[in-house]
Structure formats: C-alpha cells, structure tokens
C-alpha cells in the first residue's frame, strides 16, 4: 500500500464539480456548431458533413499562448517529433508509427467516460475539444529510453474535463484506454492491447496534466496519438496515453500496460527520476533531440523532468525509489 500524506492541493472529488462547470459543459454541447468555427477544418468539416470520415492530415488549430515555456532548451524540430514515436499499436520501430498510423481514422471519434462517475457518457471528440480554450504549452518530453524532446503541445488541463465529468468521491484513480483496431493497426504480438495507462486522481487533476489535441499549432499527427491524448510532463512518456477511447474512474490502482509486462522496469508512477536507473540503462542523463546535428547532446536528467517546483509535495511521504 502507498503511504501518503494528504496534500492541500488534493481536492476531494466530491468538491471538484461546481454546478456552473457542468452547466457550461452542457451548454457547450448544445452550441457545439458555433464553437466549432473556432476550431480547425477537420472539426468543422466533421460537424458540417455529419461526421463522415474526412481526411485526417494535421490541420491548423487555434491556440492561445500560455506561460508554459521551456526557456533553457530549444524546441525540437517538428519533423523529428513527428517521425520518432513509440506507439506500439503501429509497430515496434520508432519510425513505424509515422509510416503506418495514417490508416487510423480520427473522425468520427468518441470517448467513453465510465466507472465511478455520476453519469457515464460517451462524448464526441469535437465536443471535448470545444469545451475549453486550447492553450499552447511547451513541455519537456522525456522518454523512459533516455532520449528527450521539447514539444509545443496544444490542449487544456485535464482537470477541467474531469471536473465536468463529475467523478464520485470514491474515484481515486483515472484509467486511460487507448484505441485498439486490428483493421488499421499492426498490434505486434507480445504486448497486450488495448494499451492502458493510469494516474492517481491528484496527478490527473494537477494543473500540468494536459488533455492534448495538438502540437506545433496543429491537430495531433496520428503517430502522436491523435485525436486525443494526455501529456503528463513530469513522467516518462509512456504514461501519457495516446488515441484515447475510454476514460474510467476507479477506486484502486489500475493495471497499466508496461508495468504489467515488466514491473521491475516500469513503475506505476514512472516519475522522471535521475537517481533510479532503468535496469538496462542509467536515467541520470538523456539525449536531447532538438537540433539537426549528428553530434548528440547528452544533458543531465532533472528530477520530475524539471517540474519539481510545480510538483511540490505531491509525493511527500513516499519512497520514490520503491514507488518508482
């Protein structure tokens, strides 16, 4: 069992759903068409075309800038971020997703919300995207394989969405289930699909945790987990589930894909931690992939990927070497 001290930042889930939020969300659903005008062509075309399948290339996304910048590192060139992806549904090589994910249809797309919520529902992606202004946030992205990028994501805090979903007080964890479709995916044997990831409720509610729809001012490329994923910047990349089709609120720590397969290599928390090695490599350093040079930039890995201040006391009382 985990030992942890209750933090001020931890809001009881019974208190996190002001009525206005729910009303705003419902209002938003009613007036989706109007709001969609502000979104990219995919959303608009989908709305006007009655959600027939439309072309799924990345389209422009209207984003508002925020204060989340990475001042000490250059942004990764877009082409690199979109050609080097771990998305095992589309193959085990990091070039596979860019080659194979084009077949994924991201419209129509719905997300099922179920488990410990007042009312389980199925929500259309465009409704979710229109719910809050989409912010651009530049985050460090640290893969468990000891390479990293700096990526401008676009989305809004997952907490906003969760509040609107009205989870029950008994909900302690959130599970994200990714799409599984053997018609368009490779689904390599040896890995159990659908891909499943999870966060503790306070992690999911943390202001850094971003419900993400885009990058580089555009909707997400399929290989990045279009049309909807999460980004949890203080954790290794695999914690940030892609192409989400289901969000489930649960009371116990859920099973997660990589943790199930190799518990000694991938912890449930998987916070970026330079002092806990992966069995096969050190996590003290990372290869920063943000330039067009063949000479590697090896930089020290920062605790919580440089977000230790924002994380504050969230893990106080836990032994992060054990609960890695």
């Amino acid at each position, binding site marked *: 069992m985990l030992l942890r001290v209750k933090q001020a930042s931890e809001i009881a889930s019974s208190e996190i759903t002001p009525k206005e939020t729910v009303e705003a969300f419902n209002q938003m659903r009613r007036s989706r068409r109007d709001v969609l005008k502000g979104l990219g062509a995919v959303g608009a075309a989908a709305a006007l075309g009655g959600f027939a399948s439309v072309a799924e290339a990345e389209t422009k996304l209207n984003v508002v800038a925020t204060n989340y910048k990475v001042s000490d590192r250059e942004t990764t060139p877009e*082409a690199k971020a979109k050609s080097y992806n771990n998305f095992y549904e589309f193959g085990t090589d990091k070039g596979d997703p860019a080659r194979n994910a084009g077949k994924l249809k991201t419209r129509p797309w719905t997300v099922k919300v179920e488990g410990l919520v007042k009312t389980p529902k199925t929500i259309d992606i465009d409704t979710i995207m229109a719910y809050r202004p989409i912010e651009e946030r530049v985050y460090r992205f640290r893969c468990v394989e000891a390479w990293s990028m700096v990526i401008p994501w676009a989305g809004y805090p997952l907490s906003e969405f969760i509040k609107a979903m009205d989870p029950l007080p008994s909900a302690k964890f959130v599970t994200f289930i990714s799409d599984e479709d053997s018609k368009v995916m490779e689904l390599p044997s040896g890995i159990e699909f659908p891909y499943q990831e999870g966060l503790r409720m306070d992690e999911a509610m943390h202001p850094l945790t971003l419900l993400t729809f885009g990058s580089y001012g555009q909707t997400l490329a399929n290989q990045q987990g279009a049309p909807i994923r999460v980004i949890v910047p203080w954790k290794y990349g695999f914690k940030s589930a892609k192409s989400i089709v289901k969000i489930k609120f649960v009371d116990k720590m859920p099973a997660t894909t990589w943790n199930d397969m190799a518990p000694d290599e991938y912890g449930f928390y998987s916070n970026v931690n330079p002092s806990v090695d992966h069995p*096969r490599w050190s996590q003290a350093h990372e*290869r920063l992939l943000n330039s067009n040079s063949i000479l590697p930039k090896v930089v020290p890995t920062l605790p919580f990927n440089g977000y230790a201040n924002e994380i504050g006391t969230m893990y106080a009382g836990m032994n992060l070497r054990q609960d890695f």
Partner: protein
Amino acid sequence: MWVKVAGHMACLLPFLYLLEKYRDGSLALLADPVNFITHFTGDWALWLLLACLAVTPVRRLHASLGWLIRLRRMLGLYAFFYATLHLLTYVLLFSGYDMSAAIEGVRTGHLIAPWRQLMLIWPSMLDDLEKRKFIQVGLLAWTILLALAVTSPQRVLRWMGGKNWQRLHWLIYVAATAAAIHYWWLVKAGVRTPWKVTAVLLLLLAARLGYVAVKRLKKPVVA
C-alpha cells in the same frame, strides 16, 4: 579474384551508405541519428556474422558451392569491422562523451582533448558495464571477434598450428550466440524483433551439430 572484389564491395556498401547519409545531411535530419547509427552498425555486424557462419553449411549443400570458402574470412572480418563501429558508437556518441568538445579541442590544437573527454566519461562507462548484462555480453562478443580478427592471417594460423587455431575459431559460435543474447537483453519485454536473427542462428547451429552427428554415426560403419 572477382569473388573477393565483389565480396569487399558488398560488405562495404552499408558503410558507404552511412557515409553518404552523413555527407548529404540526411543522417542529421533523422530524429535520433545516434540511435540510427547504433542499430545500423549492430544489425550489420550481426548479419555478417551469420553470413560468415552460413558459409560452411551452405557449401556442404552442393559441390559447386566450394568457392564460397573464399568469402568466409572476409565476412568475419567485416562483422568485426561493423561490431567495432557499433562499439565506437556507444563510446563516442551514446555514453555521454562530449564529441563537440573533443572536436573543438583538436581544432584549436589541443590534441589531448579527445583523450581528456574519454577520461571524463570513463567512470560512467565502467558503471554501465558493471551494471548491465547486455553490455557485458555484447563486449564479450566483440572481444572474441577481436581475437579471431587478430589471428585471422595465414601466417598466424601456421604459427599457431591448425588444431589450436581451429579450437580458438570455434569461439565464433560463442560470439554469435552472445550477440543474439545481447540483442534480446536490450529490447523491451514483449518486443520480439530479434527472433529472425535468432532463428537463423539456431538453424546454422543445428546444421553444424547435425553434420557432426551424421558423421559420427557413419564412422563406425566405415570402420
């Protein structure tokens, strides 16, 4: 003669491809050039090692394939060549070695700079070696290939005597097995990419063992 020329050309092709990719700038545009070079050199080392091991079993298939023997040593040496590039990639590009500082040092006349950088990174490489089984087994494979490469000239063979030489060179099976284990130990649980090379290796080992077994069975009958 032409067999050897063709062999050299074929074995050098991957290296020339890598050089060309560096020269035209497309290598740098890859998302993770270091990762690409590591896998590229590792793959070719392993494939050439398997090709080297395949020479004898394939020759036995038909008398007309005898000429293949002339390629065996070359294939082994090129396997060692790519394995060495693979090891150098780890040391100079992967381990945290500061190549920019080393190059800058040499440019400004401090010829000791590359060595200094190596000394800086040495402790963490030793730490890596001590902790990681896949690095140990990979280094074992390379060390064996080094010993085989050094003893590959005819002169050394004559000096060592055929029996001793052959005993030493049987270690190529250990090297190939170690290389395959190195591959399995470095991929993630659930990832099965090394299965093809493993299948080929097992087939080649089975062919050898089968040949020996059949010969043993036949011997008493002849005698």
